[in-house]
């Protein structure tokens, strides 16, 4: 029974997508019920599996599919569900369901009874995406995982380009796909290294091989670093991070699902799934820790200066994903999984709120907002829940999970983990600084959008009819309220140090063997980090508030002075790519034409002239070009004769 549910998990949304596309034109009314039903059934399957996981203290369901004969290491279409997979698939289906329902309202524009003509393909792509993400979650073979992983990337590309009439959306879509594909090629090579090293591409076979010490250290390090390249691309970490803020050109529900809660978290999920590989090599762990340390603080600083609400949230996602990777680098996949879950809830909620604002204001620029608290009381109150959770204020969810991450990093800094202690200190200092900056940018976003005077320029700058901003319709408000519950309460799961570890327990070889001591299996909250981080939250938020009030309720980022432009442009990393990689490719693309025309064809034309001359000699009829063929055939026959003589 459980095995059937595991197969149905990705299959149901996929079938719903196929069905929705095939009825899309004939009966557009049926599209929304189809995709929502498919997603809801997958949610039920995930609920059943989660119940099994919690009641049994760690689910363990395997499904062996066909074996693909490649002539190389074993490759099987196998699925496996453990505690981590059960919890994450429940999260994915919950957010997906909320987003599918929300989209029916979001894609309906003023005066239209039904969503627009692009809705069927949009809804089908979101459903395919859901299926692909679930496939990643339950994959038991690295190639099954790669299929889901890259199909997600393709769906993300198509959905970022949903408004393809806008240049920004077109460019962002291409950038997102190409940048993540660079990481994906690295991931593929990492999979080669680990699979060939273990003799199988089965995920549990690989981790078992790592634990048994059968894999060479060099293979492990190379494989781990290459996997990390894929993670960096997918989870938008430095240096492959800059596609994610641009991806905000996509519709906001898509940002909520793909670019906040699920796809970008898949990188974190992959590290958690392949934890043994990372923990076995201190080189890989240090690389992971440095990527996380640089990304979390840099992205939080960039979020501080963004003029656009969605871009604030996007940079915040980059920074929060780095938190999760920091926990993994510190050796605590439980803390990472905890933050992954709470972040999915509060960040998806924040995006849905941002969508509700954009839907009624007609813009995502903070300058076009202001004073919305009185106009949109419902949106304002759930947004407040989301922002407080993001800032890490207890008892909201993010408060607990962030403390769990900090606790794990503190352990690493004290030398209680496989991560070298110096790297632990780098992580800890970066994480504490990020806490303050996070509180600052959440406060700024709240003040600019919901407090202060209403934007006077709203009507003038966009030339659309001015409606007073209002709370969204029930189809959008419902999912927002639904997500507000876990965004507020999910942190309580961390109250007992043993609940989460037992739910996320993987039941696999990671629980035993040489890593049993190394891997932190309980949540640890250090009182030093807790007090420090609460103080830092107060400093960040209070400082921003004072800056806002002292400057006449204008943007507190104005106080950043000349640094503001640098931060708005994300430290101008894209400019570096522009003058190096992009310029190189542009220069190289002229090379083939030159080679073909000026090098190769010179020889060809030379031989053509010879052949024509030969043809003239042999011309016995007016067959024209056939002459050339006959000439060649004769030349061939001559060679044949020669060869025959030589051979005898």
């Amino acid at each position: 029974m459980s095995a059937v549910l595991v197969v149905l998990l990705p299959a149901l949304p996929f079938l719903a997508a196929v069905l929705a596309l095939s009825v899309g034109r004939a009966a557009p009314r049926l599209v929304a019920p189809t995709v929502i039903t498919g997603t809801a059934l997958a949610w039920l399957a995930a609920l059943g599996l989660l119940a099994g996981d919690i009641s049994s203290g760690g689910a363990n369901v395997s499904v062996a599919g066909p074996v693909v004969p490649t002539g190389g290491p074993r490759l099987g279409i196998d699925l496996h569900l453990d505690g981590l997979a059960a919890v994450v698939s429940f999260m994915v289906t919950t957010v997906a369901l909320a987003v599918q329902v929300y989209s029916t309202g979001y894609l309906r524009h003023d005066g239209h009874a039904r969503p627009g003509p692009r809705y069927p393909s949009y809804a089908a792509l979101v459903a395919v995406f859901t299926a692909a993400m679930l496939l990643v979650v339950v994959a038991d073979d690295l190639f099954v995982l790669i299929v889901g992983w890259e199909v997600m990337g393709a769906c993300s590309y198509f959905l970022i380009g949903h408004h393809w009439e806008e240049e920004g959306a077109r460019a962002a879509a291409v950038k997102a796909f190409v940048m993540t594909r660079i990481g994906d090629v690295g991931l593929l090579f990492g999979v080669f290294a680990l699979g060939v090293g273990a003799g199988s591409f089965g995920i549990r076979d690989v981790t078992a091989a790592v634990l048994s010490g059968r894999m060479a250290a060099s293979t492990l390090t190379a494989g781990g670093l290459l996997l990390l390249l894929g993670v960096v691309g997918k989870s938008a970490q430095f240096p492959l991070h800059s596609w994610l803020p641009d991806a905000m050109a996509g519709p906001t529900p898509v940002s909520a699902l793909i670019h906040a809660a699920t796809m970008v978290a898949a990188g974190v999920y992959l590290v958690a799934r392949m934890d043994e590989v990372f923990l076995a090599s201190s080189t890989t762990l240090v690389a992971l820790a440095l990527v996380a340390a640089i990304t979390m603080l840099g992205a939080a600083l960039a979020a501080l200066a963004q003029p656009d609400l969605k871009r604030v949230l996007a940079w915040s996602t980059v920074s929060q994903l780095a938190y999760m990777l920091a926990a993994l680098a510190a050796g605590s996949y439980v803390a990472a999984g905890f933050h992954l879950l709470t972040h999915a809830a509060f960040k998806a909620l924040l995006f849905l709120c941002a969508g509700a604002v954009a839907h009624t204001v007609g813009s995502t620029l903070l300058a076009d907002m202001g004073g919305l608290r009185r106009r949109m009381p419902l949106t304002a109150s759930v947004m407040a829940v989301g922002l407080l959770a993001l800032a890490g204020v207890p008892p909201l969810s993010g408060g607990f999970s962030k403390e769990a991450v900090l606790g794990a990093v503190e352990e690493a800094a004290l030398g209680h983990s496989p991560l070298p202690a110096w790297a632990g200190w780098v992580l800890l200092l970066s994480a504490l600084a990020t806490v303050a900056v996070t509180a600052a940018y959440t406060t700024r976003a709240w003040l600019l959008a919901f407090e202060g005077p209403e934007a006077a320029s709203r009507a003038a700058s966009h030339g659309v009819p001015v409606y007073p901003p209002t709370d969204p319709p029930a189809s959008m408000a419902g999912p927002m309220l639904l997500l507000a519950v876990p965004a507020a309460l999910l942190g309580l799961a961390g109250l007992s140090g043993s609940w989460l570890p037992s739910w996320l327990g993987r039941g696999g070889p990671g629980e035993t063997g040489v890593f049993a001591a190394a891997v932190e299996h309980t949540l640890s909250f250090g009182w030093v980090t807790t007090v420090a981080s609460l103080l830092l939250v107060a400093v960040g938020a209070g400082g921003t508030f004072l800056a806002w009030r002292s400057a006449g309720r204008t943007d507190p980022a104005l106080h950043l002075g000349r640094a503001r432009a640098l931060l708005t442009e994300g430290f101008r990393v894209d400019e570096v790519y522009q003058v190096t990689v992009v310029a190189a490719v542009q220069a190289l693309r002229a090379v083939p034409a030159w080679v073909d025309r000026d090098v190769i064809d010179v020889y060809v034309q030379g031989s053509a002239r010879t052949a024509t001359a030969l043809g003239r000699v042999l011309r016995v009829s007016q067959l024209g070009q056939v002459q050339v063929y006959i000439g060649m055939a004769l030349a061939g026959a001559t060679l044949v004769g020669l060869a025959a003589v030589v051979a005898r």
Partner: protein
Amino acid sequence: MSAVLPLLDLLPAAGALGLLVAGRERGERIARPLGVAVAGLTTLLAVLATGAAVRTRGFALQVDTVWVRALGVHAHLGIDGISAPLVLLTAVLVLCGLVYTWRVLPEPGRARELVGLILVLESGALGTFTALDLLLFFVAFETVLVPMWFIVAVWGDPHDPVARRGAATTFILYTALGSAVMLAGLLLVGLRAGTFDMTALTAMHGAGLAAGTQVVAVLAIGLGLAVKTPMWPLHTWLPGAHTAAPTVGSVLLAGVLLKMGTYGLVRIVVPILPAGARAVFPWLGVLAVVGILHGALACLGQRDLKRLVAYSSVGHMGFVLFGIATLTPVGINGALYANVAHGVVTGLLFFLVGSLKDRFGSVELSRLGGLYATHPRIGGLLALAAVASLGLPGLVGFWGEMLALLGAYQAGTLGWRLLMVAAGAGAVLTTLYFLRMLRRVAQQPRDPLAGSVPPGGGPLDPRSDVTGFEVASFSPLVLATVVLGLAPWVLLGLTDPVVRLLTGGA
């Protein structure tokens, strides 16, 4: 049952003969229905033969009779796991092409001759894929050349007769020269080993052939096959021929003719000349990777959609050659998979380009745009074909190219791994040019300077989206793209046992 293969190989040629006998006027009238009927029957026979190959270990449906006693040439036919997919691909692509031609007959008309030539070409291709005698293989291989030359030279791009004839000449020049050298190589092998029978030669695994002889034979045979594939730097006939050819010609060039070269490498060079292959193939690997990068960079600079798809073939066939060059079972399995995938996906891409050309008269990138808005179904299919072609996992293009790279990883040395990384960079560039193409053709609105309305000038209504006959001719390829992408074991289950056999003693 043993009559299946001779019937399969000769039925299309018999159809062509029927058109010849029918006379000009009647032939013109019946050509297209007859062509589709013959191609349909051939496809059924191909399915039957594939079924037999699935059930049999080794060669199925073998026939062996003396053909030219004086030369010791046998008409030895058989089908196994590596030839069956290509036989089926050939039959399906010809059928799709003839269905398309039924509605859109390229200028200057003359259906009887065009259909006749396509059917002769099909016989030649099927003969190539089922021949088990070196000289029969050569004869069948050559049979394909002349019809394709006529198809390009006569039915090619009507707007540019000079380029069309030039392309046809370059094509015939390259391939005929390659073939002549290949024949010399085949004779060298046959005479030195004392038999032209491929099963016997395979069983010998190079025994009785000195290493030096093997190297010479690999170079000679390889040259002929490499021209056809095409391998860099012997590829410059391809962009011109593909661009000038009518839609059905481009589809068959990409889907059938290019496959004959790489099939020959796996069927003849790998098992019969193992020592020669080991000496020469590392260089083939280098040239294959150069081709991958060259094709991708060239695509970034193209201004014509059809030429872009043509150049993308250089890169994709580079992956096929790369897989074979590794001489590992994984790499060769990958090459055979990528062979089929390229036939399916590039066939579909050429059909779609043809659809656009038959509507707008030109497929210059600067004159196209906004397909998602004006022609959502063609735009959607183009997007599917593009992501399949750039190797998205879950679609057919992934497995072959991935296994070719894995083969290089398994080959183990630093050189092979560096080549693997370079080929991986080629995969990223491939993503880039296909997405840029989609952006230009499907997303971005048409350049207002190019006129607000597409020019028309083709035989189809420029405003129409995919029509019924197009659905009929594209759907087998769309289906294969998805099914072989999700169920790779179907095809690999066929090729893997044979590949193990072929590389067993190597």
